[in-house]
């Protein structure tokens, strides 16, 4: 490892490079995560008791989740809603990605991509806040629906999970479109033409030619969207209500209101396990490796 770096950069630069990487990987990535896991298996004690006889490893912090029905319900809802957000986002994104990659002329595609990139650059909080205004009880959406006569009285979009789902699809859609677009773009258009000439309909062409080719992109998009949705704090705190809390909000409360960091660490680790599990599941379903995803 060192000899290869030394041959290219000389020893002092090689030491510097390895040192920087070591500081980052050990000090910021690996050790903090391990310590969080360690924390999650310990009880919440007064500082004087740490290291004393009560400071033993246990599964107590994990049992809390299963004995507290409200937390368990929110935990399961968070997983389920994140899957829903991912599926919905995929459904909306795929036609756009396909259009940009294969149907649009290069000029059209370049223009559309620029349009797509702009909201992507804007702060997630502001994008979510924009939906807060639209979905408000006396907001423009209700005003429009009332004006058109679709509804008799305003709908409370912001007291339930509906607002949160809409906000999340909006916030994370570009993390889905771009990987799929990149994957479809690398498909040789002649393959699509060949399938069409040989008599395959549009649905069959997509199912047998385009989607198999776009698999790594779809997998990446799904993983990113699920991870962002399950780990989102901004969207549910802005568009949700006390009745539609997200698991991240429970974690936050353990840290800053309950004052039980050990308990919070256990919940955080559970969230991480769910995300890792989802990544493993998607990789298995789509039969892709980690190397494909990172591209």
């Amino acid at each position, binding site marked *: 490892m060192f000899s290869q770096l030394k041959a290219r950069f000389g020893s002092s630069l090689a030491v510097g490079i390895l040192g920087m990487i070591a500081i980052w990987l050990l000090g910021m990535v690996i050790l903090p995560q391990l310590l969080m896991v360690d924390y999650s298996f310990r009880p919440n004690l007064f500082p004087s008791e740490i290291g004393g006889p009560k400071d033993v490893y246990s599964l107590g912090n994990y049992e809390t989740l299963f004995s507290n029905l409200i937390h368990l319900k929110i935990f399961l809802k968070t997983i389920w809603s994140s899957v829903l957000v991912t599926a919905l986002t995929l459904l909306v994104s795929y036609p756009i990605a396909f259009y940009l990659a294969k149907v649009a002329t290069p000029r059209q595609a370049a223009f559309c991509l620029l349009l797509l990139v702009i909201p992507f650059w804007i702060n997630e909080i502001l994008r979510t*806040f*924009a939906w807060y205004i639209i979905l408000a009880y006396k907001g423009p959406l209700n005003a429009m629906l009332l004006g058109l006569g679709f509804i008799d009285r305003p709908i409370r979009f912001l007291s339930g999970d509906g607002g949160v789902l809409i906000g999340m699809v909006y916030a994370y859609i570009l993390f889905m479109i771009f990987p799929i677009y990149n994957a479809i773009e690398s498909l040789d258009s002649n393959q699509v033409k060949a399938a069409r000439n040989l008599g395959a309909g549009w649905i069959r062409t997509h199912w047998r030619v385009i989607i198999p080719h776009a698999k790594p992109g779809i997998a990446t998009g799904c*993983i990113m969207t699920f991870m962002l949705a399950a780990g989102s704090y901004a969207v549910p705190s802005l568009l949700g209500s006390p009745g539609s809390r997200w698991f991240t909000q429970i974690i*936050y409360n353990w840290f800053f209101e309950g004052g039980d960091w050990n308990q919070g*660490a256990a919940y955080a680790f559970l969230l991480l396990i769910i995300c890792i599990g989802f990544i493993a599941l998607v990789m298995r379903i789509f039969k892709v490796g980690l190397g494909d995803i990172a591209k």
Partner: protein
Amino acid sequence: MKSETILRWSVRFYIGVFFLYLFTPLIIMGLATFNDSRFPTVSPWKGFTLKWFSALAEDDAMWHALWISVIVAVGVLVVAVPIGICCALFLSTFQGRGKTFLYSLMMSPLLTPGVIVGISTLIFWKGLSVSGGVMLTVIAQTTFIAAYVMLMVLARLQRFDRTLENAALSLGATQWQAFRRILLPYLKPAIISAAGIAFLQSFENYNTTLFVKGYDTTLTVYIASKVRTGLTPAVNALGLVMISITVILAIVYEVKRRREQSIHS
């Protein structure tokens, strides 16, 4: 052919609806800034006003939060960009066992939810008796922003022609000179873009920052707290200013990037 035409038009319709969906929220948010109403909305329209911009300018807490955000973002830039460059250089040089593992490890902060990055940093530094604040925010954000920098620099590095380096070395340049005079200038555009992205990512970050900020509120955290308590169209004015700046930067960046691409291809 008839069904083909229908398909074409329905695709166009879908694209139109999609872009409407993408931009309407931002436009409504911007318009609400100019509505003379205590609560940010566009319905009903109560008349045109610019008073929310002056209300914003007089908001000392906002200016303070902006200052904190800038300090944090500059800190992240200084720490994350060198780390990201080092990782990219390492990955493009090292061949052998464990490379895939190390690459996955370096990518893992991007696949970890932001709240968890914040929590693990908070717990780790508590053991060293450091509590939340600007420093921890810089460290926590660097954890994942360094990985973005790595990806961007690596993408350019993969197109680098190693023979240029070897030529310099065989003509008597030291390894440092070859790095300083050949590789670094080649990487410069990628490093500048990565620095820009790092700054923006830091500035916008909410989920990670929330856990490690201590009493130092960044601008993004400030906006979120304003939406929940004490919401006035001054928040829209702030949003509009931020959106305008990002849109201008985004267009400048994209145009520049495309021009470079067309030169190279």
